[in-house]
């Protein structure tokens, strides 16, 4: 293999977080490996009220980028998030907490979830989340950082709530520091050419012509390169996930900042609250065509005055191929998700992780492209299934939820629901984003309970089960009291004064 045949240059076209996270990650991983990364920056679409909620794996990507957690939290007025609390109006069904942690520990290799089911049948009233250290800490306003002493409680993790504009700026300076050359552009034309009608160059205003071996489309839903120039169609998921009218806004900061997101379930949609140290991000989703009074509904749900209101239509779907010719789409250029689980940034991260793993080794990247498309489709469909489950099975009151219950579940999801209903068993699939705990919390939160238990549960005598349950609740209670309050932790962590 001669080195000159390999991909030596990449242009990332896009804007905001998608652009800068992509450019920074590619430059960091490949800059020292003879690959030149350039960024074509389109006009920002960020609004002052934009606040992003992130999933736990982002921390690992930041670490790879050399981005310190304190810096991120400080620069973005960020806060920690231990999970999402789903709160139906009038508490029916009861609220449930989807935490980034394990729900109970196994006894004699029997998964705790099944033991909880058994105990519940014997009269236990404590909900599943009562056995999740992460969830209990969150609901008590405590921060929880995994360490040696939390190991016995299983996995515990966290995401962030970040102001998007400073976060994008932080990533941009990081990309620049990695040697990414930046070209600002208002308008971009694409020059096609080469094998498979690939992209030969981008033409920017002022006669600038930029050539590269590989083009990454980080232009968001517009998908200027993948959808535009390469004409890869968007396959709508509307049978499984309805298009939404989504309102974004900001509300005043909480006096004491909750370490979690709250999703308030209303009859005509839902409203998410994402607390940061400077504000509270509000996302309100309703059905397309019913959004005339979205701001009123969102204001009512948030219980506060909203500012910086913007509206966006979100239609979940996936491009038929995320990588076509020499063009790779990442983030919303490749797939669009429903906003309820805050998976947008995570999907971008998945695209980058797999692109780096499969970054062309030679000049013919047919095999890599096929593999990338296979794995990204599978990854995205597993997230889609998780989202579809929430809507298609939602027991919540109101016309919005009634319409959602008519959504069709994909076969993979239907099978998962079947095995859960039958036995509380989560059918394992490859390429999942959400752990089995997440699925169990989701299903039980939606009021679905298994019709039977794995028989091995019967090996644990009822009395022993009661004792173990009591002991477990006691351990969690004591551990939570040892944790710092979220506000204190933020103050200490960022070296500033409490908000």
């Amino acid at each position, binding site marked *: *293999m001669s080195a000159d045949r*390999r*991909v030596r240059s990449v242009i990332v076209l896009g804007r905001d977080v998608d652009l800068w996270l992509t450019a920074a990650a590619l430059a960091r*991983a*490949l800059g*020292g*490996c*003879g*690959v030149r990364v350039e960024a074509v920056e389109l006009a920002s679409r960020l609004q002052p009220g934009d606040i992003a909620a992130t999933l736990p794996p982002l921390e690992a990507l930041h670490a*790879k980028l050399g981005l310190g957690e304190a810096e991120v939290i400080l620069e973005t007025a960020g806060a920690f998030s231990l999970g999402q609390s789903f709160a139906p109006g009038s508490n029916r069904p009861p609220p449930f907490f989807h935490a980034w942690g394990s729900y109970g520990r196994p006894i004699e*290799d029997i998964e705790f979830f099944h033991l909880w089911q058994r105990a519940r049948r014997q009269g236990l009233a404590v909900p599943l989340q009562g056995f999740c250290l992460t969830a209990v800490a969150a609901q008590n306003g405590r921060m929880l950082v995994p360490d040696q002493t939390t190991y016995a409680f299983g996995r515990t993790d966290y995401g962030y709530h970040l102001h998007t504009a400073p976060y994008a700026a932080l990533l941009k300076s990081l990309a620049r520091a990695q040697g990414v050359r930046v070209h600002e552009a208002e308008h971009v034309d694409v020059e096609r050419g080469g094998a498979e009608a690939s992209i030969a160059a981008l033409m920017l205003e002022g006669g600038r012509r930029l050539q590269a071996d590989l083009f990454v489309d980080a232009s968001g839903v517009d998908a200027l390169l993948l959808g535009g120039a390469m004409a890869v169609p968007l396959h709508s998921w509307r049978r499984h996930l309805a298009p939404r009218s989504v309102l974004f806004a900001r509300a005043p900061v909480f006096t004491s900042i909750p370490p979690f997101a709250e999703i308030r379930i209303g009859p005509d949609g839902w409203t998410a609250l994402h607390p940061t140290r400077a504000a509270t991000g509000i996302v309100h989703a309703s059905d397309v065509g019913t959004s005339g009074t979205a701001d009123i509904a969102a204001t009512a749900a948030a219980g506060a005055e909203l500012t910086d209101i913007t509206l966006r239509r979100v239609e979940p779907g996936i491009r038929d191929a995320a990588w076509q010719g020499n063009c790779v789409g990442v983030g919303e250029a490749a797939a669009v998700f429903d906003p309820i689980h805050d998976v947008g940034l995570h999907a971008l991260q998945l695209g980058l992780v797999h692109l*780096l*793993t*499969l*970054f*062309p*080794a*030679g000049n*013919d*990247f*047919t*095999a*890599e492209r*096929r*593999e990338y498309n*296979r794995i990204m489709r599978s990854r995205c469909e597993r997230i889609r299934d998780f989202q579809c489950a929430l809507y298609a099975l939602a027991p919540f009151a109101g016309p919005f939820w009634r319409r959602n219950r008519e959504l069709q579940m994909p076969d993979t999801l239907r*099978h998962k629901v*079947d*095995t859960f*209903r*039958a*036995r509380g*068993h989560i*059918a*394992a699939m*490859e390429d999942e984003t959400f752990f089995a705990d997440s699925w169990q919390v989701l299903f039980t939160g939606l009021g679905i309970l298994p*019709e*039977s*238990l*794995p*028989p*091995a549960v*019967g*090996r644990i005598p009822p009395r022993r089960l009661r004792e173990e349950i009591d002991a477990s609740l006691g351990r969690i209670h004591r551990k939570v009291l040892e944790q710092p309050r979220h506000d204190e932790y933020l103050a200490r962590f960022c070296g500033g004064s409490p908000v």
Partner: protein
Amino acid sequence: MSGLSGSGTGSAPLRIVILGGGTAGWMCAAAFRRQLPAPDYDITLVESEEIGTVGVGEATLPSIKVFNDMLGIDEADFMRRTRATFKLGIEFRGWDRDGERYVHPFGAFGEPWGGVEFQHHWLRARLAGRACAPLQEYSLSVAAALSNVFEPPARDPKSIRSTYSYAYHFDAGLYAAYLRSWAVERGVRRVEGLVSEIRRHPERGDVMELTLRSGARVSGDFFVDCSGFRAVLLGRTLGVPWQDWTHWLPCDRALAVACRRADPLVPYTRLTARSAGWVWRIPLQHRTGNGYVFSSRFIDDDQAASSLLGGLEAAPIGEPRLLRFAAGRRERAWSGNCVAVGLASGFLEPLESTSIYLIQAAVTDLIHLMPDRRAGGIDPRLAAEFNRLNDWQYERIRDFLVLHYTANRRFGEPLWDAVRAMALPESLHQKLEMFRSRGALPHYEYGLFSRDSWLAVLAGQGVMPEGYDRSADGLPLDAIEQRLAEFHARIRGAVAGMALHGEYVDRHCAASEAGSLAGAVV
């Protein structure tokens, strides 16, 4: 329902009837008894001394230890009673072409550096013409195997001695007997006899009752078909169709013969390619199991027998036994109230010692998905899940086995020419492409095999990548060359401190004379 036994508490136990007492049957019986509460499940196993089991010398995978631990079995005791030896991997001789060999170890190759998998650094150094040893030499378990040494792995993850695991070679007949006494002592009912008649439900077609030649009747709610190739319940009775895989795995016969033990006692299985198939060699404490797996399209039984006997290193014990089979599996392993486990559910040649693994995986899944009398008995949703998981296991192992055949340079031998040219399953084709183009290895969260296994066999079969992960270029080549040399030296140092396998077995678990007499029952 009429029952053989009733608890009198209002909910009679679910009656599980296992047909067949080989490795599959007794693994099911023992695991079910350990995991399923006795008041809820009644377990009966029907077997006949008149039906031999296929079990010859059997090689296993490391997961068998999880199974034994689950039953609380003491390793040394189990090894004494099954004449077991340790297994660090499989040596493949002549699979790429004559004169070449490689070991597929139960262990890692090298270690990742800078977040990049080892093989990429090795490939880069090799492509750059830097000093590096063959890939095989960067695995401690390969080095230990070929030096005939064995020690249990270390627990400290920082130790190089933590980079491998091990399995066993044992006498499968003795293992089944071992599990039988374990299970019977704990309440599994064993019924001796041949099945003469099978009664089915007139409408649903479910299996209801087995009638034995003695006239005794065994009725049940849930039947586990462990009757081997004959698949008496799932195949012959319920007629679940067979899915044929012989176009990918053409071997259809095996001749098996034991011979006297030859020293040294090696800690690995040896599989040697022959013109019409391959020969196994499995070292046990008291003898060595041998066999020739071949395709009857390319050699007849007599020629195969003389080829097998001609290659033995010591005098044979008895005449070679002929086994006939076909690669493939039942379209559904679980149908109605009957599930097949082991050879009754499918057959994949013992090229990677997966037979017992497949039994274990099925048993593990069944324990979770077992019908529950209180929830109305058989639940088709749980059967569908069992079948999905079972298919997954079979297909993934199949791809890995096919790789051993298709990637070969044994030009001019009709069997090997044919498998080199065959159309591959798409799932395997893509894996080969990914390795060829960039040294990338498949990653499964579920089922077999691991990345290191794929690496061992891909590289061993002579598939050489043209490129490697570009992130590997981030480290200076000089540093890589030095790390390769250091790692190589660490392996040699670790091997030097390990005991000879034969001596370790003698010290740890040597079969006693009394043990050999007890074993003669089977």
